């Protein structure tokens, strides 16, 4: 028998890599997640569709209003970007879910967690990279469509700086947080189609339920459901003129950030304790 370990007197020459080993850190995981998110087609597709929706619908509304001679002198012009962004939220949610759930679907998650056993580090990197990608692209798109709308609808009053800030930076932050919520739901559900359906339910159900709650005794519930529904909160970010109940001003951003943070906390707990 020639197995070296049985020759107790002669331990094998130990192998150690000529390249020194250093500790892996979050920066490594961020680089890795950036490679991952830019190297799959679903990212390119969802972001392209998102660009088409935000810019396309925003422009369409502006052009239509411009030719209809409607009285828009007192309108907050940037609000006309709302519809495009609302539809684009579906793309953001899809991308957020896919960032995680596609790893579960393909089994890639086992490879990832073998290469980086710190699960929190993987999730943090995923969340950061995804948030930045969505935030930056939404910011660019809302700025572009806002500028186009203001230049087309030049009869309306010019938006204030505060209005500009909230309907670009605020909306982008809101949308990216909504995406983070989807990402966390993706971790919890681990199944792409299931998680996307759940997220669309989260966006649409409160409004739909509110419509059917036309009962006198439930009027308060109906109003709350409507006020805190995601489409309404997004609208409030553009303009809260005439809004006297529910979130106002910057509140939708804080609410969405808090919800996303809570969901992410759940995702961290589940990911760290669950078998992969």
């Amino acid at each position, binding site marked *: 028998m020639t197995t070296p370990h049985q020759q107790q007197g002669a331990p094998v020459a130990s192998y150690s890599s000529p390249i020194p080993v250093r500790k892996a850190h979050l920066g490594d995981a961020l680089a890795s997640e950036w490679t991952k998110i830019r190297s799959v087609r679903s990212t390119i597709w969802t972001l392209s569709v998102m660009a088409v929706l935000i810019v396309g619908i925003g422009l369409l509304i502006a052009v239509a209003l411009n030719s209809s001679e409607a009285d828009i002198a007192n309108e907050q012009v940037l609000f006309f970007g709302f519809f495009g962004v609302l539809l684009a939220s579906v793309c953001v949610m899809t991308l957020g879910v896919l960032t995680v759930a596609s790893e579960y679907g393909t*089994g890639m998650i086992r490879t990832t967690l073998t290469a980086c056993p710190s699960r929190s580090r993987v999730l943090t990197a995923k969340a950061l990279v995804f948030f930045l990608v969505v935030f930056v692209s939404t910011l660019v798109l809302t700025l572009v469509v806002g500028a186009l709308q203001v230049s087309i609808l030049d009869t309306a009053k010019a938006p204030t700086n505060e209005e500009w800030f909230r309907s670009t930076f605020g909306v982008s932050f809101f949308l990216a947080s909504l995406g983070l919520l989807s990402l966390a739901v993706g971790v919890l559900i681990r199944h792409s189609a299931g998680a996307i359906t759940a997220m669309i339910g989260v966006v649409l159900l409160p409004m739909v339920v509110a419509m059917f709650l036309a009962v006198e005794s439930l009027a308060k519930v109906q109003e709350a459901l409507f006020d805190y529904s995601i489409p309404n909160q997004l609208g409030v970010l553009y303009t809260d003129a005439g809004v006297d109940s529910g979130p106002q001003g910057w509140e939708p951003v804080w609410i969405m950030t808090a919800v996303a943070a809570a969901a992410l906390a759940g995702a961290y707990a589940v990911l760290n304790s669950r078998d992969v």
Partner: protein
Amino acid sequence: MTRSRWGWRMIEAVGLTKRYGAKTAVYNLSFQVRPGTVTGFLGPNGAGKSTTMRMILGLDTPTEGKVTIGGLPFRQTPNAPRQVGALLDAKAVHGGRSARNHLLSLAQLSGIPARRVDEVLGVVGLQDVARKRSKGFSLGMGQRLGIAAALLGDPQVLLFDEPVNGLDPEGILWVRNLMKRLASEGRTVFVSSHLMSEMALTADHLIVIGRGQLLADMSVTDFISTNSADFARVRTPDGEPQSREKLSAALSGAGAQVLTEPDGALRVTGLPLPRISDLAHGSDVRLWELSPHRASLEEAYMRMTQGAVDYRSTVDQKAGLTQQPQPGFGAPRQQIPEVPQQGFYAPPPPGSYAGAPAAAQAAPTAAAPADPTKPEDPR
């Protein structure tokens, strides 16, 4: 004591147990995998090999017990890919990503530069398809990609789960030589497989499990000699069943175990050839054949694990396809049942299941699951 000598590179499982609800996948598994050798990890389908691999890699948390690599649980290793490389599942990749980007994302996780990615792509022979999406890869190409991922960090410990699945003969030879070379460089190589012939050529040491429990932990040669199904094939003249029965009775009376093969020959264990010949002569039976039969690793393995096989195939009767015969259209065809496969192997020696012979077990700290009350294998 082993810690200092083997330092970083030893895999050590102590009392590893994993339950999924009521099902126990792995029970009280203790073993050590040492550097410098290829250690084969064998077991029937569903024996718990993959579960054990996943627990070593921290993907599954053991219900009880623990497993460490170089003294540390895998999830606490500071830079996993530089210390432990693993191929768990060739299909565990995102098919929409190119081979190079897949490896690049893994390399970046531990700060490995991109030129190392191109290097390992060359090592596994995938440089020509590096920019192709891995969705279109064959199983063999997927295995090569998985091996590339394991080699990325030039690790001291390597785990491979069924690495030769789907590879062509050239690829199998390559993997075999790769494993041996990695081990000869002083690395720890732990390979699971159910291809016995492959393990016989590759591995120096074997860890065999069945139904989640340790069956054997010993060198390949020890394994074969301990579990060998060596037997003598004895053939009496065809057409004389009475003489076969006579001999069979005489042999059993002398303490041998006698099994009948499908073609009528006898498998005799427990008696040396001259003694069989003498007995045949004494009972006045002519012999057409008296031949020794040495076991291969495969037979030794089948013999050891036959009590621990979860999924056993049966003969496909195709009864679900044929229509019920209409009455009056001739008698239904007689199905001749084939001799079941399991009858081909001599029964295991008493206590070989669960009471794994602890001969080559280098006294792990925790009690090995070998049951001391079981009688030692007489051979």
